[in-house]
């Protein structure tokens, strides 16, 4: 940690980021209020406070949706990475807008009650044992408390004091808050407090957030598997089915010579790419009559052991292969030239 904390470590990027965020919020509020006013039947326009309640609720939900999309987007494309760097400011802004929404709701709907406004909020709908009639306001209160906790602990001070692992765990609560808010909007719509469009948009947003997380998770899992295989010395040659029958793909290891990975029907072989004659690219040749034929001068090698058929004596190195989840893996360590290896069979082609 540095010798001292600062309120915000401002730089040009953060200023621009926050400027765009505030401008975006202003445009969103203006558009929402304007659309709400114009779409209501003449003489039935809601009050300004009610419109502000809806606009702030929609803005907070949209901000949280954007926040949750940024993480997986950055894992899917590095171009989204800069958007993640100042995500905390989006989170704090989201809490403040949600607080505006909650504060206006309490004041407008419960501020004139004879009992405490917060108590009134909790008891105004007593159907806690109902699914469809469950008081959606309580879900919003719970989500607001989580958002508050995250906004209150968003400064670097808390990362240091709580420890990165605990801090991250605490901030994973954002998913619980989002789930509560989706339910808040859906139930509100079901009970006639929010329009069908709001419920539909909440559902689409939840699907978008889920879909991006699943896509990013799959991408990372594939990367992890490839990295794990590579750590053990296995190189990924791509999907087995994409190697044309009787042809090869050429693999370039981080070090060492290139490897030609051939497919012959259901069988996969890997041999050194350089022909023993004049170094021609065997991987650009093809398998004819059971032998790899060099495209330059027609030298032949048996794919299973890298030996030229008698009476010739040339030999190239062979490589171990295997198939994982439909992808051909080739071990980077070459076997001595002429070493016979059993071909790896492609299950889909064999069956």
């Amino acid at each position, binding site marked *: *940690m*540095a*010798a*001292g*904390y*600062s*309120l915000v470590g401002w730089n040009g990027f953060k200023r621009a980021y926050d400027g765009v965020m505030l401008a975006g919020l202003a445009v969103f509020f203006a558009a929402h209020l304007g659309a709400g006013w114009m779409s209501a039947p003449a003489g039935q326009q809601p009050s300004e406070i009610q419109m502000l309640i809806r606009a702030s609720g929609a803005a907070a939900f949209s901000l949280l949706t954007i926040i949750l999309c940024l993480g997986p987007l950055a894992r899917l494309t590095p171009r989204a990475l800069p958007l993640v760097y100042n995500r905390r400011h989006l989170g704090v802004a989201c809490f403040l807008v949600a607080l505006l929404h909650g504060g206006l709701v309490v004041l407008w709907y419960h501020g004139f009650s004879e*009992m*405490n406004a*917060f*108590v009134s909020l*909790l*008891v105004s709908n*007593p159907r*806690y044992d109902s699914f469809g009639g469950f*008081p959606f306001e309580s879900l919003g209160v719970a989500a607001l408390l989580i958002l*508050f*906790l995250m*906004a*209150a*602990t968003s*400064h670097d*001070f*808390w990362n*240091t*004091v*709580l*420890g*990165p*692992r*605990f801090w991250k765990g605490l901030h994973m609560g954002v998913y619980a808050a989002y789930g509560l808010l989706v339910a808040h909007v859906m139930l509100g719509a079901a009970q006639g407090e929010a329009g069908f469009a709001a419920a539909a948009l909440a559902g689409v947003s939840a699907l978008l957030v889920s879909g991006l997380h699943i896509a990013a998770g799959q991408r990372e899992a594939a990367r992890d598997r490839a990295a794990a295989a590579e750590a053990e010395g296995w190189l990924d040659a791509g999907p087995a089915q994409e190697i044309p029958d009787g042809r090869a793909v050429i693999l370039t290891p981080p070090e060492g010579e290139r490897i030609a990975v051939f497919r012959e029907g259901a069988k996969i072989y890997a041999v050194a790419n350089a022909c023993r004659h004049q170094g021609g690219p065997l991987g650009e040749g093809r398998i004819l009559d059971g032998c790899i034929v060099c495209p330059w001068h027609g030298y032949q090698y048996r794919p299973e052991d890298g030996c030229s058929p008698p009476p010739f004596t040339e030999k190239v190195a062979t490589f171990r292969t295997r198939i994982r989840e439909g992808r051909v893996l080739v071990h980077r360590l070459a076997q001595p030239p002429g070493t016979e290896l059993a071909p790896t069979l492609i299950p889909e082609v064999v069956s």
Partner: protein
Amino acid sequence: MSASVAEAIWLGLALYVGIGLVAGLGTVMFGLGRLTAADVPVRVRLLILPGLAALWPFVLARLAGLGAPEDRA
């Protein structure tokens, strides 16, 4: 939910926040040196006050020397 339960929740929350504010103010004024060796300016102290009030049981435990973050650099 009955009004009595809701009032109990409200009182519990108010009590928790009240204690938190007192504990947070005390920590901001006298206890930050035991949480971090870094300099914490006044504006940052005000910014972290809500967090101190919300997490006061944790903060008090840390001030008492319990539960140091295991993975702190």
